[in-house]
C-alpha cells in the first residue's frame, strides 16, 4: 500500500480523489486544506505521494511545494491544476513538483501519473 496526502481547499476535490483511489494500491492517509496544513501533514505522515492544488488560501500550492522540497528533496508532489494555469504549473514544477494533472481528470490518469514515482 502506498500512502497519499491530498491537498485541496475544496472538500469535493478531496473526496473525488479519495474515491478514485479506493480499491487501488494507494491509500489516502491524510488531507489538507491549504499549503500550510499540507506541510504539517506531510511531516507527520511522510506520504509516498502528495497531490497538491494550486490556488488555496493561507498558503498556495506553489509555496507549499517550495517548502516541502526544502524539507524533503525526495517529496513527490503532483500538482493538480486547471485549464489556464500554465504559468503556475510551470512555477510549481520549477519549484520542485514532479508532475501535474489537469482538472478534470479520470482515475486512469491519476493512477498512471502516480505510477511514475513509485
Amino acid at each position, binding site marked *: 500500500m502506498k500512502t497519499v496526502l491530498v491537498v485541496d*481547499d*475544496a*472538500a*469535493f*476535490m478531496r*473526496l*473525488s480523489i479519495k*474515491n*478514485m483511489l479506493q480499491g487501488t494500491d494507494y491509500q489516502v492517509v491524510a488531507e489538507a*486544506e*491549504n499549503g500550510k*496544513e499540507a506541510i504539517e501533514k506531510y511531516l507527520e505522515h511522510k506520504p509516498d505521494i502528495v497531490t497538491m*492544488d494550486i*490556488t*488555496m*488560501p*493561507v*498558503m*498556495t500550492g*506553489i*509555496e507549499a511545494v*517550495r517548502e516541502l522540497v526544502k524539507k524533503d528533496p525526495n517529496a513527490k508532489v503532483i500538482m*493538480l491544476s*486547471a*485549464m*489556464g494555469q*500554465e*504559468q503556475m*504549473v*510551470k*512555477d510549481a*514544477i*520549477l*519549484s*520542485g513538483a*514532479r*508532475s*501535474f*494533472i*489537469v*482538472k*478534470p*481528470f*479520470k*482515475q486512469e*490518469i491519476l493512477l*498512471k*501519473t502516480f*505510477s*511514475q*514515482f513509485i
Partner: protein
Amino acid sequence: MSEMFSNTSMLEMYIFETTQLIGQLENMMLEVEKKNSYDEGCVNEIFRLMHTIKGSSSMMLFNSIAHLAHSIEDLFYFIREQKPLTIDNSTLCDLVLEGIDFIKVELEKIKNGSEPDADADYLINRIKEFLLFIKGGTPNLKEIIRPEKNKKQQYYIAPDVKQETEEVNYFFANIKFQKGCEMENIRAYTVINNLKDISEELINFPEDIIEDEKAEYIRENGFDIYIKSKSSKEDILDLINKTIFLENLTFKEIEEKEAKEIFRKPEKIILEKEIKIPKLESTDEKAEEKQSTPNHVAQNVISVSVTKLDQLMDLVGEMVIAEAMVTQNPDLKDLELENFHKSARQLRKITNELQDIVMSIRMVPLSTTFLKMHRIVRDISKKQGKEVELQLIGEETEVDKNIIEHIGDPLMHLIRNAVDHGIEDGDIRETKGKNKAGKIILEAKNAGSDVLIIIKDDGKGLNRDKLIEKGLEKNLINKPIEELTDKEVYNLIFHPGFSTKENVTEFSGRGVGMDVVVKNLEAIGGSIHVDSIEDKGTTITLKIPLTLAIIDGMNVRVGEARYTIPLMNVRESFRPVKEQLISDPDGNEMIMLRGNCYPIYRLHEFYDVKTNIKNPMEGILVMVDQTEKSSCILVDELLGQQPVVVKALPNFIKNTKNIKGIGGCTLLGDGSISLILDVNGIEYGE
C-alpha cells in the same frame, strides 16, 4: 454524468460545497458593489472561489457551470494581474451576479435530480466581451503574461559526476505527446526531471524546454533526449513509458563514441546543476494570505444530513418519553425505592442534557438567510432607481433548521414590500426632509422561547384612510369605521387579495403574498404584527418559535381524553366563581375578568368528549392567547406541565379529516397519547 460519480455522496458534497461557495461569492460581490472598489484581497478571493467552482464542476462534468466559472475567473485574473484603473463596476457586478444566478439555478436542477442543461454561452460571451472591453482600456496588455523568469540551460547531472567506475550506457529518445494534451513544454520538462534521477547526464533538445514557445515545436516534432546512465535500458524505457499522454516513442541505445561527441559540448556549463527557484510571488499573493487567514481558521466541522438529525431528534424524543415511562411507572407507585430514584434522577439528567445538545445541533444562525436579503434589496432598488441601505442586526441569532427553511420566503416578501411600497423615491424623500437613501433594518433577537425578527423601514408608512377605503371596497370591514383600532386597520394588509398599490410592479403588489406570509408563519407557530407611523415608517415584527420539535406543554384532561396546550399560549388557569360567568345576547358563554370579557370554549363540547364535569365552576378554565384575542378553555383538570416532543398527526388521520384546533400529538409518560391543541383553531365556526 459519468459513472465514476454515480456515488451520491460525491454529488451531495459537490452541491453542498458549491452552494456555499456561491453564497460567499454573492456576498462578496454585493460588498464590492457597495464599496465600489476592489481591493486585492477581494479580487484574489473571488478568483479563488470561481476557480474552485470551476474545478469541482468540471470534475462532475457540469460543463456549462465550469465554462461560466472559467470565464469569470479569467475576468478576475485580468483584474488581479492588470489592476485596470477604470472598470465599469456596475456592469461587472451585474455580470457576475447573473453568473451566480445561473449557477444557482443549475445547482437547483442538480439537486432535484435533473440535468443542468441550460446554455451559458450567451452569458459567457458577454463576459468575454466585457473582458475585451476592459482590456481595450488598459495599456501594456502584454504584462498579462507574467514576466518570464530568466531561463538558463537545463542540463542535469547527478551530484556525483566524478569518476564512474561502473559501466555507463547511452541512450537516445524522442518523445511525442498525444494531440490536445496541452502544456507540452511542461510535460516534457517533467519527463526530463524524472529521468534525471537515474541519469548521470542528460541533454535535451529543444533546449530550455519549459519555455512556452517550445510547446508548439514539441507538439509537432516531439523532443529529443540524450541520456547517459548506469541504469539498464529496460529501466529507462520503463520509466519513459509511464509518461502520461505518450503518443510515440523512439528509443535506442547509442554507441559510446557517438555519445561522447554529443555530451562533450555542454561540458563547460555542466556544473549548472542548480535548478533555479523562482522568486517568491509578487505581493498580491501575500495579500491573499493575509486577507483570507481569518476566514479559514482550521475548524473541525463535519456536515451531517438533516434527515439523520431528524431521526436523532425523534429518537431522543422517544427516549425522553421512555424515560418518563420507566421512572413514573405506575407499578413503582408507593414503593420505597431509594436507589432506584437515585439512578432515575441520573437518567433524567442525562436525557435532559442529551436533548439540549441535540437541539443545539439543529440550531443554525439566521445569518445566511439574512445575508440573502442584501441581494434582494440590491436588485429591487436598482431596478426602481431607489437608494436603499439594508442594515442587519443580530444575524447570529440561532433558530431551528426547519424553521429557517420556512422563514426565508416570508422574509424575502416582506423586504421586497418594504423597498417597493415602503421606501419612497429619492426626490420625494428629500422633500420630506429625510435622507435620500432609504434605510431598512432587519433585526433578530431572542425573546424567551421565541425569536423576534423585526423589519423596520423609514418609508412612508401605512395610510389608515387609504387602508380603510380599500378595505371597504373589498368588503373586508364589518365594523363601524370609528371603532376600528389602528391595529385592526393595519391587519387588513394580511387579508388575501388586499392590495393598496395602484400599480402592480414586477416585485410586489399583486396582492398575493401577505396572506401567504401569514400562513407560512402560522404553519411554524409564528405570528406577525405591524406597526406604522405615517411618513415615519413601518415596523413588522415576526415572532417565531426557536424550535418545533419540543415544546413546553400543559397537560389537561377532559373525560378520558388528554390534551396538551403549548405553554407559550397559556396565560393563566383558574377556577371561576359564579359571579364572573355571564353570557352575551346570543347565548355564548363569557367570563368577566378584571373588567374584560373573554369567550369560554368547552373542550368537551368542542370535541364531543364524554365527561361528568359540565359546570365551569367544577372544572378549570385555562386562558390562552390567540392571535387577536384571548379566550378561556374549559377542561376537567390540569395534569401538569412538561416538555413534550411534538409529533405530527399520522397521515391517515390528516388525510381523512381535518380536525380543527389540533396541532399534533405527543406521548405522555404513561404511554398514553395526548393531542396538542393549536389554540388559534379553537373558536366556534361561523
